[in-house]
């Protein structure tokens, strides 16, 4: 089979793969941040010294999160295939990749966001209690407000993680840059493609981190 020219590669392989990666990454980050955020709030409220301690909810969440985190991503993705098919209607393609990615990322996000919420000073929360703020008001006006810079850095971290994980998602035919590096580069003995794809990923990660740092500084 004829090898494609570099320009063809760029236009027909890398560009669509780039768009797919961005697509998968964006949705994964959005959904897993939203889910992780809810998890973090619930964990924060129900923890032992939280606003409404509840051992059962807290322990159940803890167990569930650790359970999901202990799965290697590929295994999790494969074992989730029936659920994925049920929810997204297909077990291959972009949507089929986003779903397991979110399932594996959300608990991480929950843990990380919670660890930033944890750092909000107990005294500040006590102060809010002293002027009669409700649990919801304390979460909204104190805990979330104070942990926003932390949450922004978690989102930045998650974006990079999602970018990496989307490579593996190529296994269910979702495509993406990582997949190009493996299939067209590594498996095809084409170093140029492999390293140029990696180079794009490097630039992307640097860019994400730069934006993340800037936003963090702005918010701080």
């Amino acid at each position, binding site marked *: 089979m004829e090898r494609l020219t570099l320009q063809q590669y760029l236009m027909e392989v890398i560009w669509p793969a780039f768009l797919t990666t961005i697509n998968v990454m964006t949705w994964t980050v959005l959904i897993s941040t939203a889910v992780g955020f809810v998890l973090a709030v619930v964990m924060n409220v129900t923890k032992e010294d939280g606003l409404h301690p509840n051992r059962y909810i807290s322990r159940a969440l803890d167990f569930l999160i650790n359970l999901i985190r202990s799965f290697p991503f590929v295994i999790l993705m494969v074992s989730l295939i029936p659920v994925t098919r049920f929810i997204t209607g297909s077990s291959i393609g972009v949507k089929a990749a986003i779903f397991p990615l979110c399932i594996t990322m959300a608990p991480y996000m929950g843990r990380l966001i919670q660890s930033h919420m944890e750092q909000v*000073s107990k*005294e*500040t929360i*006590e*102060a*809010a209690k*002293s*002027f*009669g*703020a*409700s649990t919801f*008001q304390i979460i909204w*006006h*104190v805990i979330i*407000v*104070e942990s*926003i*810079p932390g949450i922004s850095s978690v989102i930045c971290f998650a974006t990079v993680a999602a970018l990496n994980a989307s490579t593996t998602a190529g296994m269910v035919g979702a495509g993406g840059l990582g997949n190009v590096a493996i299939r067209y580069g590594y498996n095809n003995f084409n170093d140029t493609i492999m390293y140029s794809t990696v180079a794009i990923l490097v630039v992307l990660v640097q860019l994400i981190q730069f934006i993340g740092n800037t936003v963090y500084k702005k*918010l701080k």
Partner: protein
Amino acid sequence: MIFQQFSLIERRSVYKNVALPMKCWKYDKERIDKRVHELLELVDITDKINDRPSVLSGGQKQRVAIARALALDSNLLLCDEATSALDPKTTQSVLRLLRDINQKLGLTIIVVTHQMEVVREVCDTISILENGKIAASGTVKDIFLQKPPSLMTLLGKEDHKFACAGETVSFLLPADRLNMIPMVANTFAADILATNTSDYKGVPFTEVTVSVKEQSAARKMKETLTRENLAWYAESEAC
């Protein structure tokens, strides 16, 4: 309630910090706005209204915290070690502010502290807590004159007794009555054992400790002190 570490929301401006309690209680915007300006004027920090707490000094932060604590027109202000993280000069200015507020608003202030100068500076009455129980209680002047064991323990001082010779009387003199000292010494044949000046609510008082040998002289002296409206405490020692 105000705290040792100020407990302000670091990512919100001074204005929003002070407005938060009222926002939680669903006051309308105009009322909040008016009240925030009033309060910041009261604690004298109007120029920092849009700054974040992170650019403020400790004293300024505590002023904002006081404004926030007063936002809901409470009639009790609880100060939990409120000056423990401040330098002496700032402590003084925060205490002056508390005294002002106490007089202007007729607000009861409960101060929890281990700094005795804070007690002298702002308090009328004092209770000493020891092992979770009230070990001594009374007006500030009385307690500092009596020096109960709990106070000495708190200060980490030995309860030192003067060489016993009759009755030991301690009393507090305002600065303009210091001329009473020679009078007391002469009239009642009293030996002056110690004097010590400290400020009570911003007014200097001198604590004079004398010993009186004669029982009758001691009685007359206590009568005189009572008549002169001075705080005194007497201890007769068995030796």
